[in-house]
């Protein structure tokens, strides 16, 4: 049966990825780079929940990612909060922000939704630029990583990495659970045919808002972890550039697939890490060019293409993201 080989292939992929993720610091990969990668992968998974499973293109997801980083950093660095409490507060802030912005944005669909989320994220950007607690242009510096309830210190890079990795794994499983739950199926029904979902009696706006809030909350979690990992929170995390990057990660890896955002985030973060030293302003040109290529000829993304090839050779019919 195609189904059982499918499951076996998938299990093999996860085992290999798991081993890679667990052993990467031992193999000499720079741990801070790895943590950054995992944080962005989490961010992209959150974004995928919207774009991939509900077809809502939020063009302002940096607002949740960045402001949660600020809140966590501010509480931990200035007010001496514990790490976990700081993270929870950051997530709470991004959930609230997601609710406020989502409630306005879900009133419109498609490109209007994209433009509205973009504009409201710019509003958040300006607030972060002008507010006192964010440190304005300088950002927040010297955020301590602290410890998990005073039991496990997170100062060492490898301890922090495994902590971030554990949170990511939990989030990854959580996103899968959401997508496969009855709630997730309604979201996918909305993605496929919104008017029909409405006519079936689903309160579409509520489902979309809940998906938006969940996605914002997970984005916030990723942002908080990133701020703690690097020890600083800056304006670039709330900037439209970051909103664009997370779109690219999801698109490039394959939106609407579980692994796609992880693959996309890995590619984009690695590219940026190596390119920024060598090519300066051309990073933006290369990112832009990848966008163009993705939209023109690579709309399924890496994982989507592979899944599609598998599906074509097998017997199962899969959805194509057209």
């Amino acid at each position, binding site marked *: 049966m195609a189904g059982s080989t499918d499951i076996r292939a998938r299990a093999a992929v996860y085992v290999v990825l798991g081993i890679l993720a667990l052993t990467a610091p031992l193999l000499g990969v720079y741990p801070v780079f790895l943590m950054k990668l995992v944080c962005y992968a989490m961010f992209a998974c959150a974004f995928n929940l919207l774009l991939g499973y509900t*077809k809502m*293109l939020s*063009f302002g997801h940096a607002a949740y990612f960045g402001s949660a980083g600020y809140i966590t950093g501010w509480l931990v660095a200035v007010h001496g909060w514990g790490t976990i409490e700081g993270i929870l507060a950051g997530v709470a802030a991004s959930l609230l922000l997601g609710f406020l912005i989502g409630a*306005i944005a879900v*009133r*419109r669909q*498609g*490109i*209007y939704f*994209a*433009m*509205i989320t*973009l*504009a*409201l994220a*710019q*509003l958040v950007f*300006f*607030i972060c630029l*002008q507010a006192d607690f964010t440190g304005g242009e300088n950002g927040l510096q010297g955020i301590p990583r602290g410890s998990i309830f005073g039991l496990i210190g997170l100062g060492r890079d490898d301890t922090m990495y495994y902590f971030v990795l554990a949170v990511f794994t939990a989030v990854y499983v959580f996103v899968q659970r959401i997508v496969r739950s009855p709630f997730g199926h309604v979201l996918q029904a909305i993605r496929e045919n919104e008017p029909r979902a409405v006519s079936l009696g689903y309160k579409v706006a509520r489902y979309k808002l809940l998906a938006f809030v969940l996605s914002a909350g997970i984005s916030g979690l990723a942002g908080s972890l990133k701020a703690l990992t690097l020890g600083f929170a800056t304006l670039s995390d709330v900037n*439209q550039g970051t909103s*664009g990057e997370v*779109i690219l990660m999801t*698109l490039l890896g394959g939106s609407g697939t579980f692994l796609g955002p992880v693959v996309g985030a890995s590619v984009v973060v690695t590219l940026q890490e190596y390119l920024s030293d060598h090519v*300066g*302003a*051309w*990073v*933006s*040109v*290369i*990112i*832009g*060019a*990848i*966008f*163009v290529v*993705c*939209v*023109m000829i690579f*709309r399924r993304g890496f994982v989507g293409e592979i899944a599609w090839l598998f599906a074509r050779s097998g017997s199962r019919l899969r959805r194509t993201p*057209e």
Partner: protein
Amino acid sequence: MATVLGVPLPAILGQLTLGLVNGSFYALLSLGLAVIFGLLGIVNFAHGAFYMLGAFAAYIGLQAFGVNYWFALILAPLAVGLLGVLIERLFLRHLYRLDPLYGLLLTFGIALIAEGIMRDRFGASGKSYPVPESLRGVFDLGFMVLPIYRAWVVAASLGVCGMTWFLIERTRLGAMLRAATENARLVQAFGINVPLLVMGTYGGGVALAALAGVLAAPVVQVSPLMGSSLVIVVFAVVVIGGMGSIVGAIVSGLSLGLIEGLTKVIYPEASNIVVFIIMAVVLMWRPAGLFGREH
């Protein structure tokens, strides 16, 4: 001296004219955006980049070839419009059958490319472009002094907006364009070359953005990122006005510029967010925008 709310009147009037100048740019940009969206169904994220390219075309023309302002006013939109035509031919044309989100993403990528190239060539810092000699100096209106260039920008933008409105609403070409917006296949069946019309429309909309860029060059610093935050404000303007309405785009562009100028006087901290706040309020009250209709 007369004051309003404790602010001297000339300061208020100064900010209002500045607001009107900005509003003219919003109007020109949202007009182009609305025309392109009407026919192509694509939200042109690269609009801010084309505005930037227009300003740079004027700057480069002056520095390298000694092209003066008045020629730049014609040549820069032509050059950037041609670039737009090329982009439509090579890329956008293949996306019309797909979800409009792809057009937004594609033009976002194009904006990144354009900004990256210009930043590599010219650095991130702003370049100044001189006000043309014949437009220097001020009008003394008695109650305020009005820089001639600001008055010119507002007048020129209104003129161009008016001509565009006339072209679309009152000419045969405009009638074809409006018909194609309603039902492209039917218009094509009547023997009208719709793909050519679409290409021209995109080029025209882009040229309007470039024209705004040339007009802006002497009043703002010419820099690679000058369009990237402007385009977001223009998106908000378009959401407020409702897309697909030409008059709506012009009116909301100008009035939001004015409101922004007024906010600079009353509560400066909020001046760069006031448009977004208004957008949020309008959306809660009239989701389709002030002049829009729900599709």
